[in-house]
């Protein structure tokens, strides 16, 4: 398994993206992995670790020890036009391989290398036939639930500040 060492990988990345998109079955698993990562990236390292601790995990090793770096965040002109560089963010990444061969990748905003490693481990488990279901049930689903509760709460607080316009009738109706 070759790990990316390229910095500023956008052009080569766009090429690989096109090639990958042709494989449908691959895409189903990819969508699952992506959905899991979307939840894990929002969780704290401690929360992921606590849920993994209850499982009997297969043997695994670090393929890439956690490392910190930067990602240039991009916006679009007018919100929907050509991209521009807004500013960077710190990002931590790691890769983990299960003894059975599955390789998982962990990327997250911030500088918490342990969190990146745990995401990588979960990503590897999601791909495993033996552990995919278990990690979804025991780790991803509860964290997703927790995230949704948090988002719902924030949305409700926001909703309370929505203006309800009403018309004042002046003079005698």
């Amino acid at each position, binding site marked *: 398994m*070759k790990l990316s060492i390229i910095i500023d990988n956008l052009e080569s990345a766009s090429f690989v993206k096109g090639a990958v998109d042709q494989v449908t079955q691959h895409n189903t698993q990819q969508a699952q992995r992506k959905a899991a990562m979307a939840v894990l990236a*929002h969780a704290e390292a401690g929360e992921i670790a606590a849920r993994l601790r209850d499982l009997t995990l297969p043997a695994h090793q670090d393929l890439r020890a956690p490392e910190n770096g930067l990602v240039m*965040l991009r916006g679009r*002109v*007018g*919100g929907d036009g050509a991209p521009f560089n807004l500013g960077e963010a710190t990002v931590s990444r790691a890769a983990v391989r299960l003894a059975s061969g599955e390789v998982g990748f962990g990327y997250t905003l911030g500088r918490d290398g342990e969190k990146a490693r745990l995401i990588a481990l979960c990503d590897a488990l999601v791909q495993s036939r033996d552990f995919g279901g278990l990690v979804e049930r025991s780790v991803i689903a509860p964290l997703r639930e927790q995230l949704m509760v948090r988002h719902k709460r924030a949305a409700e607080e926001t909703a*309370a500040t929505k203006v309800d*316009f009403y018309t004042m009738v002046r003079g005698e109706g």
Partner: protein
Amino acid sequence: MYVAVKGGERAIENAHRLLADRRRGDQRVAEVTLDQISEQLGLAVDRVMSEGSLYDRELASLAIKQARGDLIEAIFLVRAFRATLPRFGASEPVDTGAMRVQRRVSSTFKDIPGGQILGPTFDYTHRLLDPSLAEGFVPETPATAEASTAPTPRVTDILGRDGLIESSPEAEDGASVGDLTREPLNFPAGRDLRLQNLARGDEGFLLAMGYSTQRGYGRNHPFAGEIRFGEVEVEFFAEDAGFAVPLGAIELTECQMVNQFKGSATEAPCFTRGYGLAFGQSERKTMSMALVDRALRARELGEEALAPAQDEEFVMSHSDNVQATGFVEHLKLPHYVDFQSELGLLRKLRKEFADANTPVAMKEAAE
């Protein structure tokens, strides 16, 4: 001319030791923690992230603490830190239309789809100092209401459907996105570079420039079409994974300024626009940015460009507070030799002046 000055080591060491003591202040007072800065001085953190051009709340909080609350010094620290890390690449462009909105107002449409959402704002406060905040203040639990599932489309998208506003410029095929942290700035600069420059530009500078356009120096008749603040998801195409991986969410503020319309014999008149985007809740910054972005489009839109805010070289060369403070503050570093040579020249000129103006009689008497 700069020369090495030696002999200050002890003084410098002791000055930094004194700084550390003064930064800590009276040690009977509790030390401020990074969490406290991040949670309770959140807008200062947002500004340091925006202008430091690095999204990391913890680092920005540390920088504010280290800089004793001097935000430009903190921004400087953050900029220096970012130079120590490798760059993995660039994110997929964020979708502000899909933002989990915490605040969203439009001054152009009262009944905008999704509604006017005030969120946490200073607007409509009376700006009276609140003594109850001085100590032990416990806020009420925020009110809640049923969350709406209605989408909150951008105002400009709604106007755009009817062709009433110009559309955003599309990326040209194969065009790379300009990055002023990688290549030196050249003029004229593209909109991508201008927006990057403004996004990390000094809020005070942009505020003054934006204000100047309102006062008549490059007027562009703005309406705050929409200001929104909230969380957007970030994805990064990770080459090793082979797909765009989610990195988590960041908070952004976006301002869509709707400006004076233009038209021609061949094009129907439509509103023009200016754009502002920044990390965190940075409303004043993004509004100013949008005004200046629009002003800098003067030439592109066939307007006379006579005002400072319309001069891209002027704006872009002076917007960066780290560059500006570096050049202004370097004046306090030793310039002894420089100054000695000026002093020598001045003495010589004064002597020549005195000689030329001494009356002839006095000269003769003296001889």
